[in-house]
């Protein structure tokens, strides 16, 4: 099988799983058959992705096969198909691997769900994997957009999985609306791109102004999808979904789609240095801002959510600095360790039946594997030397250094320190110290379906740094690592952050010291939320009401007046028909007179 067929297989396996699960409700109703179908599809997809990776290491050249889809004129054709190159191979493995781990983890985690819900959950997962694959193998931006939107829909479905819970339903809608608003940018960008270059490909040569416009529009979509300031507000709320969903969509894959878009469209962004500057600034700012917010969260998932925001900021900053390789590599390592963190957190949540770190404490003794997994993930995230995150962060910092007066670089360094600090806080409060309550005392390790993925991801989170060189080769660039000033500084900051966390929280009894209480003020994203809500209520609703009034009274009124006046006129005119024959004769006679007159006059 050649790579293209493999890619197609990677696409079709989850597609078939999703289709089967959609069409045969029996499978979903009993729960476990749906899970089996979904996991089977994902396994096939993962195997195909591995095969593609193996082939691509020898032959990274882009392979592409497309078929025409929409035809506007003989020259204007939209195509869909499959494209395989180094970037696709790597991303496909990441996506399918993390998806498979999450799905296997879910087998145990979601075990207590009622059977139909269990089945529905896995059906959605199959749909998600399909959508993400469509996005990854897209040969042009149009298909990427299709995958983008599909992913948005599945995210909505999965965030709102507990649809009976009002907060979950609201969160799902919020995610959908915010990202939909951002997707406007993608769509309009596509239009402009097509008009300017006649195709949806990313290797078009555009005039500088046009390139800036197009890339800015795409960047708007990225800001939404990858939860950058100010459209980050949906991501914390998205934690309403089941934890494995948060691990897969809102840490590893979906939010990374924005980064992936920029990596794909790198030729376009290269023509727009202004956009890149904006990306650099915004990414760094978001990274710092989100790290601050992560400091004061008590919900373990919200900590991880803001952490994701922050790390995405790193990736965006790297892309803005011009190094797509750095951004992409960080995406990969982040997928591994963030998913690991989420799954380990899920294990802990499952054990104590609460998301709040204050309900945990001392879990290390009772759940050693989970603790080890979480700590490994935390260290990787913080960028402790040797772990995967260290190498990818270093790449990012190296790319960003010197640009825009090194202000973003300094911000990212500070963020690294804060990252280590807040992760340390969670580690020490939740996993060390003494248990805070009966639930924490009785915590125990989960079953093997949950432990297996934790192990796999731990290995990857720790060791992915070694993959940097082959990764770079796949991307088509060189990679050298040297423990120079930059990496040393970053490592020092990370270690310092952890140390400080130990000092502040290490001896806590699973409690929060009071000092951070006032810092919680800073935390509130509700400021932004309130701003949005105000805008929505004062502006959008008012405008909508006005338009509604206009529609009802002016537009409808016009039609009603027309109808009414027709009826009235008809009613009046009807009086001419008296039914009295001589009246008709009179009318005829008058007509005759008129005609005679006219005939005579001519």
């Amino acid at each position, binding site marked *: 099988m050649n790579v293209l067929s493999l890619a197609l297989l990677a696409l079709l396996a989850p597609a078939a799983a999703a289709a089967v699960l959609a069409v045969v409700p029996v499978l979903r109703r009993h729960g476990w058959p749906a899970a089996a179908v979904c996991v089977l599809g994902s396994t096939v997809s993962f195997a195909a992705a591995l095969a593609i990776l193996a082939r691509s290491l020898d032959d990274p050249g882009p392979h592409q096969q497309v078929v025409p889809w929409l035809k506007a004129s003989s020259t204007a054709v939209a195509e869909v198909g499959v494209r395989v190159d180094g970037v696709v191979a790597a991303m496909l493995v990441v996506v399918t691997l993390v998806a498979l781990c999450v799905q296997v983890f879910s087998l145990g985690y979601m075990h207590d769900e009622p059977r139909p819900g269990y089945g529905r959950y896995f059906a959605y997962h199959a749909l998600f994997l399909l959508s993400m694959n469509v996005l990854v193998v897209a040969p042009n931006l149009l298909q990427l957009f299709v995958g983008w939107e599909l992913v948005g829909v599945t995210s909505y479905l999965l965030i709102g999985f507990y649809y009976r819970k009002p907060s979950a339903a609201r969160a799902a809608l919020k995610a959908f609306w915010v990202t939909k608003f951002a997707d406007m940018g993608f769509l309009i960008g596509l239009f402009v791109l097509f008009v300017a270059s006649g195709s949806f490909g990313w290797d078009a040569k555009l005039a500088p102004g046009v390139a800036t416009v197009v890339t800015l529009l795409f960047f708007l979509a990225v800001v939404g999808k990858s939860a950058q300031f100010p459209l980050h507000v949906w991501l914390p709320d998205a934690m309403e979904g089941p934890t494995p969903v948060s691990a897969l969509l809102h840490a590893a894959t979906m939010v990374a789609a924005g980064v992936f878009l920029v990596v794909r469209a790198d030729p376009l962004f290269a023509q727009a240095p202004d956009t890149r500057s904006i990306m650099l600034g915004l990414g760094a700012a978001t990274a710092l801002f989100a790290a601050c917010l992560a400091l004061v969260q008590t919900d373990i998932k919200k900590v991880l959510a803001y952490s994701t925001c922050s790390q995405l900021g790193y990736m965006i900053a790297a892309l803005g600095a011009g190094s797509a390789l750095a951004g992409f590599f960080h995406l990969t390592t982040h997928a591994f360790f963030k998913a690991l963190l989420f799954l380990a957190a899920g294990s802990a949540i499952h054990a104590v039946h609460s998301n709040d770190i204050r309900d945990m404490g001392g879990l290390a003794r009772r759940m050693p594997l989970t603790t080890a997994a979480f700590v490994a993930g935390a260290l990787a995230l913080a960028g402790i030397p040797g772990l995967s995150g260290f190498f990818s962060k270093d790449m990012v910092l190296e790319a960003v250094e010197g640009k825009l007066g090194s202000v973003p670089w300094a911000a990212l360094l500070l963020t690294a320190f804060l990252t280590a600090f807040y992760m340390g806080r969670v580690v020490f409060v939740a996993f060390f110290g003494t248990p805070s309550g009966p639930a924490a005392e009785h915590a125990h390790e989960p079953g093997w379906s949950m432990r297996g993925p934790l192990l796999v991801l731990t290995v990857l989170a720790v060791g992915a740094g070694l993959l940097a060189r082959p990764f770079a080769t796949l991307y088509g660039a060189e990679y050298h690592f040297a423990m120079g000033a930059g990496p040393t500084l970053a490592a020092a900051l990370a270690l310092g952050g952890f140390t400080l966390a130990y000092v502040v929280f290490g001896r806590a009894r699973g409690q929060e010291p009071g000092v951070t209480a006032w810092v919680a003020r800073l935390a509130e994203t509700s400021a932004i939320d309130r701003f949005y809500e105000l805008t929505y209520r004062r502006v959008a609703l008012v405008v909508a009401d006005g338009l509604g009034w206009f529609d009802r009274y002016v537009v409808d009124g016009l039609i009603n007046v027309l109808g009414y006046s027709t009826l009235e006129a008809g009613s009046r005119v009807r009086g001419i028909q008296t039914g009295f024959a001589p009246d008709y004769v*009179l009318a005829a*006679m*008058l007509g*005759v*007179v008129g005609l*005679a*007159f006219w005939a*005579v006059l001519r």
Partner: protein
Amino acid sequence: METLAFSVVAACALLSAIAVVRSLDLVHAVLWLGVTLFATAALYAMLGASFIAGVQVLLYVGGVITLMIIGVMMTRRQSGAAARLERRWSEPAALAALAIFGTVTWAVVATDGLDAPAPPPAPSAADLGRALLHDHLLAFETVSMLLLAAMVGAIVISRRRDPGAVAKRPPVRAASASPVAPATSAEAAE
């Protein structure tokens, strides 16, 4: 001499025509029409169409007037009194009539060279017969068909549908001259 005769005949025709449309008694009106038709026949004779004049008297005066009288008699009220007709003038009708008269007269007057010097010889009955049966044979035959159709149609229209219908109809009315309110038959048709 000729002019006098013409004037007399013309006056006769006009006055009796006015009587037709203004007479209050229907039978009188029919009879006045007879006078008008007679006058017209005399006019035809003066205009050299003696055959037509004869036909006019036969057909119109004899046939049509007789038919009319029969029709009037058949549609009288049981009481025997004839229907009263209108007294008042009708303004719109007069207006229309005057308009038409005015238009035609003006057309006639405005056309020059209408009055030829000498009237050519009038066609004889033999000429007429030849013209009918030779030049205008198709029209002649068609008109015969039409007469047949008219006869059959009249019979069909005025046929009595079902014997019960007559019993349902309220033929006896109060002896007032004003038009009755729509009868039950009219209401049934609504």
